[in-house]
């Protein structure tokens, strides 16, 4: 028993040494400074990659994987979800109104999500807004881990394709606190493997973890929901967050929890300016 603990602690310690990054404390940096720093970091790390191409995630930095991905994107399995989502989006509620009463431009609004709602004092993601819309029209909310919500979001992502991410900068102390909470979550080591999000996506980015190429944080939010071949269906960003947490031996948080919404807010601001290209396929 003790030996396992010791081994885990030693492993954690040695990984810590490898991953330590020579940056100074950045707890209080403002979002625009963070965004600039992140872009500069990846520009130096991947000088051959145009920053705008990070919208393609890992396929911006792995030519071999990109070829197969493009082949898949030629007629991708998520098109079925986009079609179904379009029908769901167009179907009227019991009161005769529909989603288009809540979302402008036939749902092509993903670029503005998430945002910080000053009245409610919390981050509103697209998924939350969909359920708010349902509640406002007397419909029961959809489960956050279900296919109907993911399918609707897939349609809205498709409708929003090509629009650049345009998440508003935090404008109040409460909003800045939500952003900071997201940044802290992203940078905090969790789980028995003692990994932070930054361990893989900043410190070790571009390297391989077993057979997988580690992707850049820039562009992490542009392509959701994703048809993941491992899931064999479309799923949202928070489902992936939960998976990342589980993979490092940490108990995941629920989809649309405060933790994950703040994280999405932080990550989305960093990707401001990148083109949306969701939904997409991932392995």
């Amino acid at each position, binding site marked *: 028993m003790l030996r396992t603990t010791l081994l885990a602690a030693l492993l954690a310690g040695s990984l810590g040494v490898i991953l330590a990054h020579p940056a100074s404390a950045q707890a209080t940096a403002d979002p625009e400074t963070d965004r600039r720093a992140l872009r500069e970091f990846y520009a130096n790390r991947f000088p051959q990659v145009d920053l705008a191409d990070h919208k393609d995630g890992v396929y911006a930095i792995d030519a071999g994987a990109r070829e197969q991905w493009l082949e898949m994107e*030629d*007629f991708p*399995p998520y*098109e*079925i979800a986009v*079609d179904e989502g379009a029908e769901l989006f167009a179907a009227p509620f019991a009161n005769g109104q529909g989603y288009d009463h809540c979302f402008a431009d036939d749902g092509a609004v993903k670029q503005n999500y998430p945002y910080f709602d000053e009245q409610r004092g919390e981050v509103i993601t697209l998924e939350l807004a969909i359920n708010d819309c349902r509640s406002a029209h007397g419909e029961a909310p959809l489960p956050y881990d279900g296919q109907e919500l993911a399918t609707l979001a897939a349609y809205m992502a498709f409708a929003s394709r090509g629009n650049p991410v345009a998440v508003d900068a935090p404008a109040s102390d409460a909003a800045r606190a939500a952003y900071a909470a997201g940044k802290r979550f992203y940078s905090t080591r969790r789980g028995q493997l003692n990994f932070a999000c930054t361990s893989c996506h900043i410190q070790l980015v571009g390297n391989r973890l077993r057979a997988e190429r580690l992707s850049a944080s820039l562009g992490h939010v542009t392509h959701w929901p994703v048809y993941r071949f491992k899931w*064999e269906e479309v799923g949202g960003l928070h489902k992936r967050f939960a998976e990342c947490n589980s993979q490092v031996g940490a108990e995941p948080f629920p989809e649309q929890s405060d933790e994950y919404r703040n994280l999405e807010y932080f990550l989305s601001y960093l990707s401001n300016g990148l083109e949306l290209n969701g939904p997409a396929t991932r392995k």
Partner: protein
Amino acid sequence: MAAKVKIRGKVKDGVANVKSLMSHPMETGTRRDPEGNLIAAHYIEKVTCFKNDQEVLSANWGASVSKNPYFAFKVKNSAPGDVIRITWTDNLGDTGSGELVLK
């Protein structure tokens, strides 16, 4: 109601380049659900492709074709206005079909 087959295609120099996507679980019969029960095999066995009601191509499949199958092929002597129709039937007798007028 038969399931829909999504079809895309273009004619160039008399050749129709046709791509299709079918919504189907393609269960192998060897996977287990979270409770540990075997999930019954359920897969498309036969796909038939027509141009203007004439069969031009068919496929026999096993369960090892991927979920939501993709199938692309090329048809000779095609012209805009030709109708491509694709139909499938699975091991449980369910069917699907789709049609596309070539441009």
